[in-house]
């Protein structure tokens, strides 16, 4: 007989099953205010949400990629390339602001699709394929810009990056909406279902399910690319300009967030909620470092260590849960 659980037990179960990052965030919110009195100001909190928005958008795409047992290291370069091309178009008037949204999504979709095609057609492992394209796209960006810096973009684009709805930054509204849609696609569509299934057992998908695995994989990278495109537009709006060195190291930040959130590098297990927490946690840590005066390079050291720590922690947790390592 299963006896009714007391409310204390229920509460304990709830606390036990909370995402580890929830505790991390609680800890941060207890400790950081002691280091900087500015941390808790509404203005600063809203700044954090604005800062993390672009990371969140791309991390939603990366959650799909990693769940399918892939990886995409080219997102930073893709973002920079799209940002520069579109910023130039906006600046010289060939791309009207309203059209720019379609341009970034279309460009992102194609650039992402190229990543997917290199992986599936040329049969190159995702890690290597996307490093190759990371370098290629970055090189193209530099060729296109030739050392130029673009500043002062049309008003609507700047609003997209810098505006607010009441107290809430506009990018935060967009990114949370995208996260919600990302969660919904995972749960309710064939695309989401196949992303999980391919990451979980690709051979079974091919043989037992007759699924066109390569087509879906390519689509996953294209989807990721489209989100990178949206991120690029918000990024140039927020900075009100761009240059060819935009978003260097961006991919590490994104991957760290997704993995910290609990999406498994072994494929098949994903958590959009975890990704939101992961992005936000890193955002808070970065913000804290800025407030205490740490420089950019120190920040990168911390992000690198976080990435390593979170992957190690994920492995530990999976072994503890008795999940067999996949080969």
């Amino acid at each position, binding site marked *: 007989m299963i006896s009714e659980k007391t409310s204390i037990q229920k509460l304990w179960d709830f606390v036990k099953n909370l995402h580890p990052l929830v505790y991390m965030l609680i800890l941060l919110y207890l400790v950081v205010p002691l280091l900087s009195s500015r941390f808790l100001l509404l203005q600063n909190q809203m700044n954090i949400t604005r800062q993390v928005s672009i990371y969140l958008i791309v991390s939603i795409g990366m959650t799909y990629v990693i769940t399918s047992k892939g990886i995409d290291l080219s997102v930073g370069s893709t973002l920079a390339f799209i940002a520069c091309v579109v910023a130039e178009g906006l600046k010289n008037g060939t791309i009207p602001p309203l059209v720019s949204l379609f341009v970034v999504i279309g460009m992102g979709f194609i650039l992402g699709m190229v990543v997917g095609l290199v992986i599936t057609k040329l049969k190159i492992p995702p890690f290597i394929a996307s490093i190759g394209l990371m370098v290629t796209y970055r090189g193209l960006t530099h060729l296109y810009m030739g050392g130029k810096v673009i500043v002062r973009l049309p008003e609507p684009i700047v609003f997209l990056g810098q505006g607010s709805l009441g107290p809430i930054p506009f990018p935060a509204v967009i990114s949370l909406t995208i996260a919600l849609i990302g969660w919904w696609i995972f749960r309710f569509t*064939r695309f989401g279902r196949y992303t999980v299934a391919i990451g979980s057992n690709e051979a079974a*998908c091919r043989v037992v399910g007759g699924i066109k695995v390569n087509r879906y994989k390519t689509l996953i990278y294209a989807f990721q690319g489209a989100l990178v495109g949206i991120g690029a537009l918000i990024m140039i709006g927020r900075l009100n300009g761009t240059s060819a060195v935009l978003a260097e190291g961006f991919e590490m930040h994104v991957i760290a967030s997704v993995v910290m959130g609990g999406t498994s590098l072994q494929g098949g297990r994903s958590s959009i909620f975890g990704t939101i927490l992961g992005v936000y946690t890193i955002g808070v840590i970065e913000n804290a470092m800025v407030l205490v005066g740490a420089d950019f390079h120190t920040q990168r050291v911390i992000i690198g260590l976080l990435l390593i720590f979170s992957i190690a922690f994920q492995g530990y947790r999976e072994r503890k849960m008795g999940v067999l390592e996949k080969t």
Partner: protein
Amino acid sequence: MSEYSAALLEVKNIGKSFGAVRAVRNVSFQLFPGEVVALLGDNGAGKSTLCKLISGAYQKDVGEIFWQGKKVEITSPDVASQIGIAMMYQDLALVDEVDIPGNIFLGRELIKKIFGIVPLLDKHTMRQETEKLLARVKINIPDINRPVIKLSGGQRQATAIARTLHAKDAKLLILDEPMAALGVQEEQKVIQLIKTLKEEGRTILVVSHNLDHVFSVADRIIVLHTGAVAGIVDAHKTSREEIVGLIVGGGKRNDQ
């Protein structure tokens, strides 16, 4: 009509190698409508490979396959299922992180359209259909909405079997060790299920290592030894000793 043209499936001299390993060598046999044929052989004898050649998971190196008298090229699992062949795989049966309905409908999900355009998974109907299929297998699974990695070995097996049954118009069902992970009671349920399927007129090719099971369901027995046919015998006109002899490689017999 000759026996030849009445065969549902005929395999002629097919072979398959993996590098230096000749997994299936010069195998020929026929399957007739409505019969249960057991495929026996030691570990590594080539049973799974042979099954996969028929289900389209592997491509044969040499030989011919005839379906209802016509020569066919089974170039993919899709082709196999279109002509009416469904297989339960020993190894790559399930997608661990997906739930039972998701596994049963993998690759042929039911879709509903909201607002007449947006295609969504019809989880409700898939769940109902799944419950019906599991009821046929008669193996109890309390919560079908969990990822199958959290199920017991027997429950996973039941899921894989149910998946094969879902191919409603399949004339030939290939079951690669369907009883391997089952408890005694569940084994009996699967044997009963195979008998029911036979009564429905389906042809079944079943791989098993358990001679009790084989003798309780099979009409005929095919024994493989190191990739080649060691014997094809009528299950009612043989003995355990003879079968064991064929499996370990001591004899040869062909009733066909």
